[in-house]
Each structure stands twice: as structure tokens, then as C-alpha cells.
């Protein structure tokens, strides 16, 4: 598999990472998602990493990049399903995932996205 599928669900994009991504695959996902936010006019991105048993600094950086890029493109990002062992390891590694919204599962992630998008809806018009 040389691409992670991106599903459009209403105004959100949904990604479930089901494979141990090599670095190029992670970069491709980052590029694809950024492009799709613009093409689909998406307001939010939900990334499910519940299948990942390892998140190293490279994948952590990719998640941070996606969150930062989507913010610039007026979309919210939520990362869901991080396994406890992965969370413990990431913190010890020094990757705090600052600026990334997380939720325990897809349901609460979708609810969080909805809330954030609604809160941001009356555009400040700056």
C-alpha cells in the first residue's frame, strides 16, 4: 500500500492509519491531507491511530505538521485512539504533541471536532 486512504464525511476528513508507516508514506499522507483540506473545503480532520503500536518522533512530527497546516487552512485536527503504551513512550521520548487535540476514540473525536468547528463558525473576519 503506498497511500493511506482519506475519507470525506460531511465537512470532515477521516483517516485511519492501519499500517506501520514508513517515513515516505507518512510524508505522502501529510501532503495528501493538506491538499484534500483545500479541495474538499474540509473544516476538520480526524486521524485515528488506534492501530499504531509505535509512534516515534518522525510520526509525532508528522501529526504536529498536519495539525499546524490544517490550522492555517482554517480546519481543525483531532488525533484519536492513541494507545497508552504509545502515550507513555512519546512523553518519555520528549514528544509532547503540543498543539495537537486528542480524544480517546472516534466518537469523542468527532464530537470534539464538531464543537470546535461550531465555535469557530462565526468567522472573526480578521
Amino acid at each position: 500500500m503506498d497511500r493511506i486512504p482519506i475519507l470525506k464525511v460531511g465537512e470532515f476528513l477521516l483517516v485511519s492509519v492501519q499500517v506501520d508507516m514508513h517515513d515516505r508514506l507518512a510524508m505522502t499522507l501529510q501532503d495528501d491531507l493538506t491538499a484534500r483540506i483545500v479541495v474538499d473545503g474540509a473544516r476538520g480532520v480526524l486521524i485515528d491511530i488506534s492501530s499504531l503500536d509505535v509512534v516515534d518522533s518522525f510520526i509525532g512530527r508528522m501529526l504536529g505538521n498536519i495539525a499546524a497546516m490544517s490550522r492555517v487552512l482554517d480546519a481543525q485536527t483531532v488525533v484519536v485512539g492513541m494507545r497508552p503504551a504509545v502515550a507513555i513512550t512519546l512523553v518519555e521520548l520528549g514528544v509532547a504533541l503540543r498543539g495537537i487535540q486528542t480524544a480517546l476514540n472516534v466518537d469523542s473525536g468527532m464530537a470534539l471536532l464538531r464543537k470546535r468547528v461550531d465555535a469557530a463558525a462565526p468567522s472573526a473576519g480578521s
Partner: protein
Amino acid sequence: MNTLADTVLPVRSDEDIVRVRQRVREVCIAAGFSLVDQTKMVTAASELARNALQHGGGGDMHMATPVENGRRGVRLTFMDEGPGIADVAQALRDGYTTGSGLGLGLGGAKRLVNEFAIDSRPGKGTRIMIARWK
């Protein structure tokens, strides 16, 4: 003393880093590591494999499963013949990076394991050994 003969895996491509993670996971499970300990060791291996590939231009990982004082462990040695690291103390500091990374690879990997040894000389390549014990 090793319970298994050393295994050598190439670290020459992105796909090799994925294979390193998978094989290290297998030996950590075989050594009876807890899930958190497996995850720490696999993550450290991933960081060091990427370091060998990106900074060292590729190399090898040697994998051994020693038993000392009745404790089982996993020992990994990453070797490359790249430019080496001029200032090891600096390279271990968080935030130090020569590439596009976060600069957490070496220092971060060190925090995830019980033993960490680095031998690097400019022009001679780098050798990093890590070990974790059950």
C-alpha cells in the same frame, strides 16, 4: 552469553526502518517484555535506525538477546560508516538536529532504554548500542 545467535538487519531504506521495528518487537515479546517496555525499545530502535539512515547514510543493526544474572534482555547495535558525530554531548541534547527532525532521536532514544553507549569519530562512522532488561 546469548540465547540466540546475533541477527543482522540492514538499515538502508525507509522500509528497512519498518522491518527493524517489526523484528525488534518480535524479540522483545520473546524476551517477555511488558507492552510498555516493548514499545519503548521498538521506538528507540526506530529513532536510531533513522539516525543511521539519515545521518550515517545507512548501515546495519545487530540484534542479540543476552541473559545476565538471570535477566533476559535485548541488545541492539546500530553501525554506520557515515560522517560520524563530532560532538556527541551536543548530539544527545534535545533539540539538536543536523537535519529536518525534531532533534529528539538520540537523546530521546537514550531515555527509553536501560543502557546506552555511543562511539563515534568524525569520518569513521557511528556505533550506538542500546539494551533493555526485563
